[in-house]
């Protein structure tokens, strides 16, 4: 895993490349704890969002097992009324969670930038 400094630099890059970037974190799935984060909006509770999203991933993995799906979980894209949330698996134990303002960007840009930078979080 990269150092926290490198993780923060990666988030700086995401923030610069995604118009409407709100917040992002690298999260440990098992505990829901953040390994690094960046937020441009103080009212966005990134720690809570990261923890609940780790629960969501665990549930999704249970669903995949229940459906006997022999494939990998790559990412999750969630469109809210005014935000886009992306969850990108980095390793089997960690994921990047990112929120962006829907008025300033679109799904394709967010997904593309996250995918392009995913390897640097490994």
């Amino acid at each position: 895993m990269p150092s926290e400094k490198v993780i923060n630099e990666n988030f700086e890059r995401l923030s610069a490349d995604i118009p409407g970037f709100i917040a992002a974190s690298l999260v440990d799935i098992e505990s829901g704890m953040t390994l690094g984060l960046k937020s441009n909006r103080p009212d966005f509770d990134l720690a809570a969002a990261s923890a609940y999203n780790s629960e969501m991933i665990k549930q999704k993995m249970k669903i995949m097992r229940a459906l006997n799906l022999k494939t990998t979980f790559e990412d999750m894209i969630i469109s809210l009324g005014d935000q886009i949330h992306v969850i990108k698996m980095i390793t089997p134990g960690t994921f990047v969670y990112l929120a962006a303002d829907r008025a300033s960007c679109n799904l394709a840009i967010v997904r593309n930038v996250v995918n392009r930078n995913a390897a640097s979080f490994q």
Partner: protein
Amino acid sequence: MAVLDREREVVVIRVVYDGPPEAGKTTSLRALAGSLGQDVTSPAEEYGRTLYFDWMDYTAGRFEGYQIRCQIVSVPGQAEFYQRRWRLIKDADVVVFVGDSTSARMDESMESLGELSRFLARTASPPVGVIFQANKRDLPEAMPLEEIRKRVHSGGSPIAVIESVASDGTGIRETFVFAVRLALDRVREQLQSKSLPVGKPEIESSDALLASLRRREGRDSSLPPAASPSAPPLLRQVIAENEDPTLHFAPWRDVSVAVAEEERPRSPDPSAPSGSIWPPVEGRVILQEAAGKRMSTHRLRGGGWTAGLGLGWRIFSGRDTVFQDLEAGREVLVQVARMHVACRPLLSVHRCVVLASTGQGTWRLWQIVRAERPLRDRFTDINRCSTDEAAARIVEAANVLCEVGARIQQAPCNLPCTLDTIGYGENGPVYVGLMPMDVQEGPTADVSYAIGSQLGSILRSALHDRRSEVLAAVARSLFHSHPSDSGRLLDEVLTQLAAS
């Protein structure tokens, strides 16, 4: 000390930062606080030194639907507060041991770590995970990481090593998150064994902890006495005795076969989910140590897979231990874990079993065993030994094979008894090889084969030039010792060799 507070829907865990004086405990806690946006409270400080503890409260993450509330405490490092240190560690769910990793202070760190391990081994159940946070890695005199690992592991307990520079925050958060995972593994064990306390935690603030400490001081006789300054550096002695010359021991290295990259399964790594590692807490620590980084896997001629060659661990997966789904793999993991438990007194300590994703939609069961010294190592330089020394080693190996072989006969599974699978663990001779993945699998413990064929082969080849002198010395040694099974078997070997 973990408590499940159902009313507030939180699970409270205690993360304790321990370590020798001025190793960087408080600096680590402050760096962590900075990274998490929290405050650190130190009830009493003198010239910047911690007198009681440093305290930080941090709520984040989720566990089984509950919020995780971490009480993060560092102990005072100064020798005069020795008893206070144990009182704080007694309530830990995980310990981050901050060690000064510079060459000059490494002995001190090791001595303190040894004390911690012995204390936890005596008091904690289920076991408390320990992480060695190798601090001050930015200093030019910092000891190489491999050397640190070797020394930390020679202490006996399974301890993960993570590098840090507390002064600039490097490695601090990573260590903390790993510590939380270890604590949660312990909590899960307590949940399963129904031993997890439920209710409101007794201590919820720095003030409450201080009051509790002050109440307990002076009337707790279960703690170890303060270390005598003149006490021999036991740990140093243990380390010296356990220097592991088999760091690169990997007997299957020469039988790996070429294979396309896409066919290789992913090696196991510490991200394996809870419930897929045995034993739950020590297993994750071993996994972090042995397979902290993704490694290339190699196929063996027999169809199995290995990884991390030459790193002091045997990481192995059998040809058939691959599963289409996690549940099927878990069933076998449980069986294998039961077999390990049943054989535990026979086995070397540092081993775990992991069910890990192959990255190809399947799951593979891996065994990770630290490469302990096998009996065969006693014979690597035997041609340079005196005749009496060579004979003594042969008699010693025969005795060990017979002793462990007799115990292995009682095991619920078949374990091979050879010069390569029997060796010296921390508490004497043990089985150091890989475990079979099936109760029926594996050859039986044939001690006469090991003595007759393997020791006989050493006598024939390595000691070829002075075979008759060594044979005579072995015979003399047997003549002067009590009659035993090993003596009888060796006697048979001598007769055969003399006739050949």
